[in-house]
């Protein structure tokens, strides 16, 4: 059974990584009504920003902050310069999905000539091994888990106890009503893109740190796991995304131990299909995928 205990340890790390990515993705969707298919590409771009800083001899933990800042600024600009104008123009939901897919494609191919085709990895010592029974994790992985838990608590506190968080929830529930109540929805949405962008950037760096090596194409895999967790939990629901991340993280790692690591994303996809057939609205959402677009 020790292989499954080890897989459980990896599962803990995996779910931590997925949670950060999925919460960012689902908040973007829930509050700004934008399915941002370029999310995976912004993640991998941030991972590369951290890579170049790390290669200059700086520790990856500083690179991680740089990745988060890059993710925040980039996502903010992406919304201001591309998504928001299209939305203002009255582009439909589906049109916006196509726009974000086009952005994703452009981003990947703008990066390709810059970062090259070869896979890279961070130069960071993984830290000492920590054993808890059969579970073996590195110090770095423990740091990732703690970071993720802290971020989740932070998001919870933000949404529950701050004025900004309440304004975000109000904007998500009904933007017009929120604006009529005096909430500056435009500024709230800007803040959402900055915060979720930072989560996206962080998620990219820790996902890259947690995998042996990464290439531009890893972005699609990042997007799929984040999507699976977000949809599983009920799109637009941050707490749902956290639960989704726990489930997807555990299932993918356990299946990798029992079967083959090449099929991790396939298993995540299998979970996604099951959810879409059995409970399309996700675990937590009341309407979610079932409601009419718009």
């Amino acid at each position, binding site marked *: 059974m020790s292989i499954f205990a080890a897989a459980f340890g990896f599962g803990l790390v995996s779910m931590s990584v997925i949670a950060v990515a999925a919460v960012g993705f689902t908040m973007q969707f829930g509050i700004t009504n934008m*399915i941002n*298919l370029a999310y995976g590409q912004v993640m991998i771009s941030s991972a590369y920003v951290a890579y170049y800083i790390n290669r200059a001899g700086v520790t990856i933990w500083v690179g991680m902050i740089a990745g988060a800042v890059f993710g925040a600024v980039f996502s903010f600009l992406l919304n201001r310069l*591309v998504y928001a*104008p*299209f939305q203002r*123009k*009255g*582009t*439909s*939901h*589906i*049109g916006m*999905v*196509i*726009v974000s*897919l*086009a*952005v994703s*494609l*452009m981003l*990947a*191919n*703008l990066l*390709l*000539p810059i970062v090259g*085709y070869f896979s890279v990895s961070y130069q960071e010592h993984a830290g000492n091994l920590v054993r808890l029974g059969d579970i073996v994790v590195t110090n770095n992985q423990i740091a990732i888990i703690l970071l993720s838990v802290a971020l989740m608590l932070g998001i919870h506190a933000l949404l529950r106890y701050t004025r900004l968080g309440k304004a975000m929830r109000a904007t998500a529930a009904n933007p017009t009503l929120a604006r009529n109540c005096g909430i500056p929805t435009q500024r709230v949405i800007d803040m959402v893109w900055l915060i979720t962008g930072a989560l996206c950037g962080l998620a990219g760096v820790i996902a890259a740190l947690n995998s042996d090596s990464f290439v531009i194409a890893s972005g*699609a895999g990042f997007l*799929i796991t984040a*999507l*699976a967790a977000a*949809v599983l939990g009920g*799109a637009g629901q941050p707490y749902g995304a956290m639960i989704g991340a726990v489930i997807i993280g555990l299932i993918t790692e356990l299946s990798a131990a029992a079967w*083959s690591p*090449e*099929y991790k*994303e*396939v298993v995540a*996809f299998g979970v*996604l*299909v099951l959810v*879409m*057939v059995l409970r*399309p609205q996700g675990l937590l959402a009341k309407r979610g*995928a*079932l*409601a*009419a*677009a718009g």
Partner: protein
Amino acid sequence: MNTYYAANLLIYAGVDIIAVLALNLQFGVSGIVNFSFIVFQAAGAYAAAVLSMPPHTAADYSFQVYFGGYQLPFPIPWIGGALAGGVLAIPVGLVVLRKLRSDYQAIALLVTSIIANTVINNARPFLNGAAGLALVPQPLQDQVDTNTDSYLYLYIALTAVCVGLVWFLAARIVNSPYGRTLRAMREHELAATALGKNPVALKMTMFMVGGAIAGLSGAILVGFLTVWAPSTWLYPETIILFAALIVGGRGNNLGAILGALLVPVGFEEVTRQLIRMNVGPPNVIPALEWVAIGLFILGFLWFRPEGVRPEPRHVFEGSPETELVENVGTA
């Protein structure tokens, strides 16, 4: 420009026209955002390949593994390719098209496309994994010498016949009362449902028809290329077809044909010329080609969302529908 290159260009144009016409039936006319379109083309190509190839135990084929290998004579592989695309559409459609909201459908299909590619890539015994299938027999190769110019003309003629058939079918669907129902569903699904139309049945039908046509396009392509591998059907290939349709004009068959000639064919040709003229490092140009395709999509959605040849609107003067149509018409 030698004969082989010209033939290559014409056959690609034919395949792209067939594919974009099929995508037009799904996305342009019925509003199904089929981001896994290329998977159906791939299914057709693989089906045509295993139907026409000898078993993988045959002398020259032992370097690859795949199921089947039936050595069936021409038209059967092409018909089989179309069937494979249509049949594959049934399970995918049943999962995706029944309950989900339209933007979720789009995401689910995109993810399906990425995962299908991963699975075929890793599961080697099924269709030879990442290396793909090679030495796929060409149509009629046991009766005609395939290394002659006249075989190229024959292949162009066969492709042209298929283009004609698909265009005829697409025109019949678009201009029929059934096509009108599809457009009604695309514009206002709830209203169409209220009038007694069944949107799930309509979408499933167009998903299967489009899947079958996509499968046929794959069969034509693999018969000409004689190789087929997962790297030839990555999900961005679907985006090129979407770009073609958005540029050409959604909902308009002529627009779809125009888009197929402008975007996939035109871009291939421009890229080839640029590489030949040594403008910039060779691996940067294909990457920039994708960027340009993205810009094309954004540019057209911004400045001319209806495309070069817009869909003809049949709206009666003074009808209250006019305003509604204008509101929902922008995507």
